[in-house]
Structure formats: C-alpha cells, structure tokens
C-alpha cells in the first residue's frame, strides 16, 4: 500500500491508524533523516483523512521504542545561529504540535471548542531523548510493565538539551523539580516511577500496550486536548516568577546545578533557563524558547566535543573499532583470574557480572576466597537496597569459584593475571598457568608498571600474551587499556576486545611503554600539584582550582588515595632503573619528606595532604604543611593555578600522542576522560587543544615552560601541525579544504 521506508501505517475497521515505526539501517529506531522526511505524511493523514478517527504509535522493533535522535545527523549541523537554523530545529516540534493540537490554533482550541484526534502511544521498549519526546507529544502514553524499560532525556550528557519539547512537556506533566532531575541529570525513569510521577498514563502487561492504546483511542474518538492546551492550565506544583514555590525551587536548583557544573556545562544552565522561561508562557512560545537555546548549544564547541568523544568515538571504541579483522568472534565463557587481591577481585566481579564463569586463583584457598568476599559485599548491598533479588545474587556469586589449584584453570577461555607486581612472581605464575591451559587461550596481564614485552619473555606463547590494564575500583572505572607488546598477535587482541565487549568497558589500545597511556599523564599532573604546594600555594586553592576545571576530585586528594608512598616508591625505582637518564620531577625531596619524615604517606596510612579520622574519612587539609612550606604572601590567581594543572595534563597527553603511545586522538581523549576524569565538557585533552587552537595552546605552553620549566614544552609535532594549519583531529584545517 504505502512505500514508506521508516514505518507502516495501517487503518483498522474502527478508524484507528496504527503507525509502526521501524527505521532501517539503525541499531534501534532513531530520528534520522529518513524518518524526519516521512513522519509529516503520518501527521497529515491523521489530520486530513476523515476515515482516520485516531492513531496509535508503536515500534516495529523488539529492542526499543525509540532511542532518540541520530547524533551523527546533529554532528553535521552547521551550528549557525539564524532564522534558518531555528526553523530547521523547529521542524519536528511543529509536527508534534500539529499532532497534539490537531492543527488547531490556541484560539480555536480555547474559544471555539476544537479538539484533536486522539493519539496514543504504545511503548514496549526504551524511549530516550527524541523518542521519549515523541511519546510525550502523544495524548495518551501506555508503557509495558517491565522495570528494564528506560524512559529518559539523556541529551545533557552530550552537552545538549532535549530540543523536541522535552524541557516543556516534562514540567507540565510532572512539575519543575522532577522535570529538572530528568533534563539536567539525564537520569532515566522506569515505567512504574514514570507512572507515579505522571509522565505516562498507563502501565500494562508487556505485549498488551497496543491493545490498551487502541482501547483508549476508541473511547476518545470525539477528540482530546493536551492538558496544557486547555484554558486555565497550571503547571503541577506551580510555575512562574510570582509563584513562591517555583521561586524557591529555582533558587535552590540553580545553586545545586551551579555547584555541580561549575559553569562548565552550558547545557545545564540552558535547561534551567528553558524550565524557568518556558513554563510561564503558552506551549508554542515555550517550544520556540527551547529551540533557541538548543540552537545555541548546538553551535557551542562543548556539545560538538561531547558528542564526538562521549558518543560517536566512545561507541565506535566499544564496538571494537580497533579489533583486528579476520578473526572470528571468540566466545569467552570462562575466565581464569590469577590473584585475588583488590584488582583480581574487581576483575572477577565484573567478569561474573557479565555472566561469565570465573576461576579465581591465589596461593591459598584463604587468599582466593577474598575475591568471593569482595563480590558478596557488593551483592549484599544491592540486595538490601532492593536492586537485586537474593536468588540473583546467589547465582551471581556462584559464578566465582575460588581455588589454589592450577589444574582448575584447564578449561578456561581467557586468563587475566593480577598477581603481585614483581617480575619473578609473574614469571612463575605464567609458567604454571600455561602448563595447564589450552593452547589457544590468551594470557592477559593486568600489570600497571611492568612492560608487557618483558613479561611475555616468560611466556611460551608470546603471540598470545597481551596487557589489559584495569583501573581501581574495577567495577566503577569505565576504561580498559589494551596493551599489545611487539610480538602480540591478532588473536590476543581480538580476545581482549571480545572479552571487553562483555564487560562493557571503554577500550583503548595503547603502546607497550612505561605507564602505558594514563599512567604517563597522571603522575606529572599530580606532581604539578605537589610542586605548587612546595611553592607555598594554598592547598585549598590547588584543590578548588582542579574542581573549577571540572575534575571530579582534587589532585592532592587523589594523591592521598593512590598514596604518596606509591609515588615515592615508583620515583625511587624509576631513578634506580634509569640511572643517568632519570629526569628529576622536582618533588623528590618533598615526597621523601612526606613519606619518610613527616609520616604523611597517604590516606591508607592515616595521613597525607589531608587529615583523616580512624575510619579514613577525610577531615581537612593538613594545617602543618605551612610549617614546612609557608604560604606565599602573594597567592596566584585561581586562573593561574588552573592553567598549570590543565597544562600538566595537556602536555603529557600531547607527548603521548606525538610519540605514538596512543594511536589516535580519539583514544587519547577517551582514555583521559574515562581513565582519570579529565573534564568531559572538553571532549578530552586533544579536543580541548583543537578547540582553543594549536597556536593558542603552543603560546600558553611555551609561556609556562619559560616560567616553570621545560616540562611544559609542547612536542615538535604540534608545532609542525600548527605551522601547516592542521588541527589534531583533521589533517588540514577546514578553510584550507575549501580553498583547495
């Protein structure tokens, strides 16, 4: 009948038109160019076809209702701010308005009694972003009773706002506070919560949503209106600057949002403005306000960078962009985790969580069982908070088998080694393991300090030997560094990716050099903070400057966590190993004093930059520091401290890229954000450098180098690129392309 690519329309004998959306060539239904082009035909038919009495919208996919807009489509947006870009972004909104008003004006609806044909939506899977916005524009929302269904507006997580009426329909349905939570935090609701808040109208048995939606339409064929199109409508809980409750909400919510975002995320402020400005005007004006803020965000480098790194590149990495081709998928069902210390236990946990069997081996049963206890503690908490049933927890725990017997490793599909960081210990474990495991089983080492190539020498199958560097705590940290040594073969690399796909970390491939990537960048940054302390800069200023930059935790607090002792030990061993080639960091004496003289080796030891109580709770910065390093009379501005802390991350990252430690800018940016919490709004260090421009980056770096030392000197490669008019991400700058 119809030849639409993205949906089918079926009219039944009751005059109910069912729109079944099924967008081809996409993992899930999304608003892509094709659906955008065809959707107007549905709206027009709904309104103009007299045989159509109402409509039901559903998904033809069983994995989702609709996942939102195709961000790749937005990535292509010119970012211009003019009437054309406004109209472009209004397009879908006008269709939504036409659908919910039946094409009537406010005057017709409120004075002449005109109504719209009823549209109900049947949601059997997730509805996110633009998908949920379509749901909200329908008059009646029916969702399947399945707690796994996510309903949410995650646009803020890529620096945008829900620009399909999301910031306007949510407050009108669930009030300002709930709407702000949804829109500014990007958190999802499950169907029960959404029903309780009033975001949706019905929750029915899975598979029955279309029936329920049709039944509602049948009962309402005389016509309906959205509540906000009825005269006298009031936002639930109140809105507007004359409403004390709304004012109170905004005063507190603004402060909370500012406290968290540090004014680094324009989307959060824009969403708050949409809620504030939009809820005291009629819907048509409200949507236009939202779209204007949306266009501004789309034009902002923050959203461009966030979309590129946090969405496009992250997804590509997780899909295995760097997995070698030509190797069949390796189905890993059982993993041998060697060592049941903190890292080994964490690895066992995420492996079991992904449904794989784990053989957790350590020297003794007593040691091995620590990994079981580790997971049990987490599961108990989940059960007590109602996130998991007792049965689920038991099944989870049963997947981890502790052992002290290497024979138990004989039928594993992958080995991950996380034993003590000593070459002789590792060599011994490698030999004993390889004696029992299958010939094709890949051996991955979770070392963070020892070169993989060196360890591979102990292996009888060095081509199957690889590094997999996890971060602590493993169940929380999202990054995985995959480190092939020179002799690593494709099979090992493929296995690492296939395993990672199950545990769902963000993987980057990193060269086998000391510290790999993240541990080459983080120490110089932490060191810079120590140097600032020795210069007499207030520790509060250092910590707050990092916070203003958007780092989740100050460098001094992090150093306390990883311990100064570890820093001191690494410093000492590096010095020994490198001999004359050792480049002093300038803080050797400081670390030595903190660890060996002043008894401030880090949180685990009871004291560091901060004081701690007996339970390890951070109390406050150590006042005694000023006895050793008196506060400088003239304190630097926060901007100066921020610049040093920022460039102490940018320069080492640039060096890593220039030296090929990371293969591409994408990996560096992902590694920085997910490895040590580099501020996400930047899109990562290299995106940040592109955003401010290579010239500006080099000027500032040279300036810092002049004032504070050669450690800030930018790599020659970046100077060359600047000269050639290139950016990090693109070989030739855009205007050159046009000229060519």
């Amino acid at each position, binding site marked *: 009948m119809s030849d639409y690519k993205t949906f089918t329309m079926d009219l039944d004998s009751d005059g109910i038109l069912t729109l079944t959306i099924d967008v081809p060539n996409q993992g899930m239904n999304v608003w892509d160019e094709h659906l955008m082009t065809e959707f107007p035909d549905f709206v027009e038919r709904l309104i103009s076809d007299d045989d159509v009495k109402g409509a039901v919208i559903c998904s033809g996919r069983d994995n989702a209702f609709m996942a939102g807009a195709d961000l790749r489509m937005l990535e292509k947006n010119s970012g211009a701010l003019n009437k054309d870009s406004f109209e472009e972004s209004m397009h879908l909104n006008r269709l939504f308005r036409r659908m919910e008003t039946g094409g009537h004006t406010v005057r017709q609806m409120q004075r002449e009694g005109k109504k719209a044909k009823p549209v109900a939506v049947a949601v059997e899977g997730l509805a996110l972003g633009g998908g949920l916005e379509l749901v909200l524009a329908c008059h009646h929302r029916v969702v399947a009773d399945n707690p796994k269904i996510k309903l949410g507006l995650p646009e803020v997580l890529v620096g945008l706002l829900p620009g399909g009426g999301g910031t306007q329909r949510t407050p009108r349905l669930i009030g300002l506070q709930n709407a702000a939570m949804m829109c500014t935090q990007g958190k999802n609701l499950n169907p029960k919560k959404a029903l309780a808040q009033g975001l949706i109208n019905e929750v029915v048995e899975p598979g029955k949503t279309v029936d329920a939606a049709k039944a509602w339409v049948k009962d309402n064929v005389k016509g309906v209106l959205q509540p906000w199109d009825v005269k006298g409508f009031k936002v639930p809980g109140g809105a507007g*600057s*004359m409403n*004390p409750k*709304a*004012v109170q909400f*905004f*005063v*507190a919510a*603004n*402060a*909370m*949002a*500012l*406290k*968290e975002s*540090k*004014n680094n995320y324009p989307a959060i*402020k824009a969403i*708050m*403005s949409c*809620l*504030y400005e939009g809820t005291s005007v009629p819907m048509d004006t409200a949507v236009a306000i939202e779209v204007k803020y949306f266009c501004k965000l789309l034009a902002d480098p923050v959203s461009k960078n966030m979309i590129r790194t946090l969405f496009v590149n992250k997804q590509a990495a997780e899909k295995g962009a760097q997995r070698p081709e030509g190797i069949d998928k390796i189905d890993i069902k059982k993993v041998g985790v060697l060592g049941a210390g903190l890292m080994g236990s964490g690895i066992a946990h995420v492996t079991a969580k992904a449904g794989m069997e784990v053989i957790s081996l350590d020297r003794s049963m007593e040691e091995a069982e620590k990994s079981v206890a580790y997971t049990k503690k987490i599961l108990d908490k989940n059960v007590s908070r109602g996130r998991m049933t007792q049965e689920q927890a038991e099944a989870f725990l049963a997947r981890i088998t502790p052992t002290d017997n290497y024979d138990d490793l004989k039928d594993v599909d992958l080995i991950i080694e996380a034993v003590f960081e000593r070459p002789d210990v590792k060599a011994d474990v490698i030999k004993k393991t390889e004696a029992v495991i299958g010939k094709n089983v890949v051996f991955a080492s979770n070392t963070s300090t020892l070169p993989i190539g060196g360890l591979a020498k102990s292996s009888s199958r060095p081509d199957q030997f690889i590094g997999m560097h996890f971060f602590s705590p493993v169940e929380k940290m999202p990054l995985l560094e995959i480190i092939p040594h020179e002799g690593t073969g494709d099979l090992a690399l493929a296995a690492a990716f296939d395993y990672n796909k199950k545990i769902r970390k963000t993987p980057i491939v990193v060269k086998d050099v000391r510290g790999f990537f993240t541990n080459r960048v983080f120490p110089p940054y932490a060191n810079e903070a120590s140097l600032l302390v020795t210069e007499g800069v*207030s*520790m*509060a*200023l250092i*910590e*707050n*400057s990092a*916070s*203003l930059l958007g780092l989740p935790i100050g460098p001094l607090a992090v150093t306390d966590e990883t311990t100064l002792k570890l820093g001191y030990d690494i410093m000492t061993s590096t010095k020994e190993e490198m001999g004359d080639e050792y480049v002093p960091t300038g803080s050797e004496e400081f670390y030595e004093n903190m660890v060996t003289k002043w008894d401030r080796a880090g949180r685990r030891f009871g004291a560091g930059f901060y004081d701690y109580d007996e339970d390890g709770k951070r109390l*406050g*910065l150590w006042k005694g520091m000023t006895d050793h390093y008196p506060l400088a009379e003239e*304190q630097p501005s*926060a901007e100066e401290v921020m610049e040093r802390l920022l460039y102490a991350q940018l320069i080492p990252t640039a060096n890593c890229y220039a030296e090929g430690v990371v293969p591409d800018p994408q990996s560096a940016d992902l590694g920085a954000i997910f490895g040590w919490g580099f501020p996400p709004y930047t899109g990562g260090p290299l995106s940040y450098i592109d955003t401010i421009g290579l010239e500006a980056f080099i000027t500032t770096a040279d300036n810092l180098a002049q004032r504070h030392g050669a450690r800030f000197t930018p790599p020659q490669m970046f100077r060359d690129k600047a000269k050639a008019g290139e950016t990090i991400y693109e070989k030739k700058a855009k205007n050159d392309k046009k000229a060519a």
Partner: protein
Amino acid sequence: MTEAYIYDAVRTPRGKGRSDGSLHEITALNLSVQVLEALRDRNNIDTAEVEDVAFGCVSPVGEQGAVITRTAVMNAGYAETTGGIQVNRFCGSGLEASNIAAAKVMSGECHLAIGGGVESMSRVPMGSDGGAWPSDPASAFHNYFVPQGVSADLIATKYGFSRDDVDAYAVESHKRAKKAWDEGRFKKSIMPVKDVMGVTVLDHDETIRPETDMQSLGALNPSFKMMGENFGFDGVAQQKYPGLEKINHVHHAGNSSGIVDGAAGLLIGNKEIGERLGLKPRARIRSMASIGSEPTIMLTGPEFAAQKALKRAGMNVNDIDLYELNEAFAAVVLRFMQALKIDHSNINVNGGAIAMGHPLGATGAMILGTMVDELERADKETSLVTLCIGGGMGTATIIERV
C-alpha cells in the same frame, strides 16, 4: 550647588516582625502615614511646601506595592501637589531615599522634600517580590548568587572572624542599645505608633535583650550552615573564592539583624526654605555615594561606599567623629572596622540592628536620623552613615552638624 539640610528626623519604634509583634496589626500604609503626620505636625509646616516624598521599601508588593509613598502622602492629608516615589536599593533603600530627597534639593528641583522608608516585615515577608536575581538561571549562574547569610559567613571566613568575635560584637550591640534607651538618646526622634483609636501600641524598640551574653548566644545553631552545605551555596561561594577550603558558618539569629516592622522619615530642604518657614537646620549633607561591589561576598560594599563619600567630601577616615553602619550581620561591621581601621568606640555607638532590628526599607533613614540626634547629644561634628546592600552594593552619606 545648593546645600541640603536636614531639618527633622522621626522614626517609629521597631516592633518584632512576626505575628506576635506589637506592630503586626499596623499596616505599612498606616506606619508611613504616622511618620508623615509627625513630620508635618512637629514642624508645623504647610504640606504644600513639601514637593516630593521618597520612601524606601524593599518588598513593594501587596499592601506595600503600587507606590506606597504616594498612597501614604494622600492618606496623611498632605497637599495634592506633594508627589511620592518608592525607592528600592534593598537594605540601603531608606538612606537612598533620603539621598534622593537631598539630591532633589541640591539640584534645585525641590526646596523641601522628605526622604524615608517603611517596611512591615511581619505583614509582607522578606522575598515576597521574588525577583530574577536569585531565581532566573540566567542571573543565578552568571552572578554566583548566594543568600546574604552565606555571604556574611563568607566574610567571616575570608577575613578571619571567629564565632566568638561575632558573638562578642552582638553582645555589645544589645548593651549599647539598652544604654541608649536608658539615657533617652533616641527620644528626639522616636514617635510612638498608635492604633486606629489613637492608643499607643508601641513606644520602644521591641527586640533588645540586655541580658544577652556569650553563653546564651553560644547555644544558638548557625542559621546558614544547612543552606550552605546542603543546597549548594557554599560550593557556589567557593567557586568565587577558591582560596577557601570551606565556609565557616558563624552567623545565627543572635548576631544577625532582627526582622522587624517600622518606618522613618527626614525633612530635607535648602537654606532659604528653612528661613522662610522658621525651621532650624540640624545637619548639612556633606556628601553621598552609592557603589557596586563583588556580588557573591555581597556585603563588603560599605567600605567602598564610605571611601567614595569621603573622597567626595575631601575628607579622610579620621575626619569622621561617628560611624554608623547597619548591623545586618556582625561580620559586616567587623570587616568594615578592619578595612578602614575604625575603633569600635567610634562606630554604632548606640547599638544597631542586631539589637533593635532592621526594617529593610526604613533602616537607612532611621540610622541617619539617629546620627543627627547623636551628633547633637555628644557634641560631635561629623558622621558617616552607611549600609551593606544585596547584590553587592553600598550607600553612604556624610553629615555635619550645623
């Protein structure tokens, strides 16, 4: 330029600004009317001579809305020709209104005018007018808005005032206020407030607690700690002041200004009108200044307003005999004393708003009048009156006894 003189100053006593306060039954209009009547009757003037009346009012909504001043002028039976304007510069409103009246005289626009203010905080609660400043995200994010109490605690933290420092200041405020009342230092300008029957409902400031001591204040919980720590405001303040590890919350109900009801007015005119009407000038306005200052710490403006006013007058800090700075919060006064090196014995000599309360729109006019009285009583020459102001502002006026 024409000189402006203060011919008279009156104020109501300050009533506790709650439903059990003595002035709760008196409308803001009625308070204003009684002040205007007193000025007329005490000076026996033909109200047609009063060309304009400016009153400060900080929550000009509800019964304080629609230009309360003009309504009061009409209801006080003033001549139809007398105008009325309502002024809002937050806590500086009453002083700003007096300065406007003085400026009208100085510019030649008016021969005789009234400046003053009114606020019935028990009837129209603080914040009733909402406002974009704290609630519109465009402003709150841009200006790093925090409530004044958090700003006051920020001052204490940044400039090193401990809980004991601010409490000790508060104890002294009550002592001085009590002494001032005992010695009748306010009697020249206090006008008892009467009810509709003409019976006095309040003839003294209602919130002075002479028994206040360090121990009783020590028992009070900090008022802005929860707001600061749980609602994000401390985090916002620290973004503006990243040198601070945390905010030390020292202010509470006992060392901050009290919420009260009250009104005040000053009769201001040029030399000729005084001579013509047979009025005796009591003080001359030497200079006036209003400034803006950093809005997050918000309450450090008096220092800069005072300096500007001193400069305008060609004076320096030591040329002022008596300073009067509204006691919005103890740390505000302590910081002012610290910044300008002013001895406690020369500032707020008769106590202040910590003891007697701060009827937002009226306070500036009240303390200006207090200084007119005190210069005469103490036989001093010069006084600088100033207030800290929301949004980071300061207003100051220097007067000289005639």
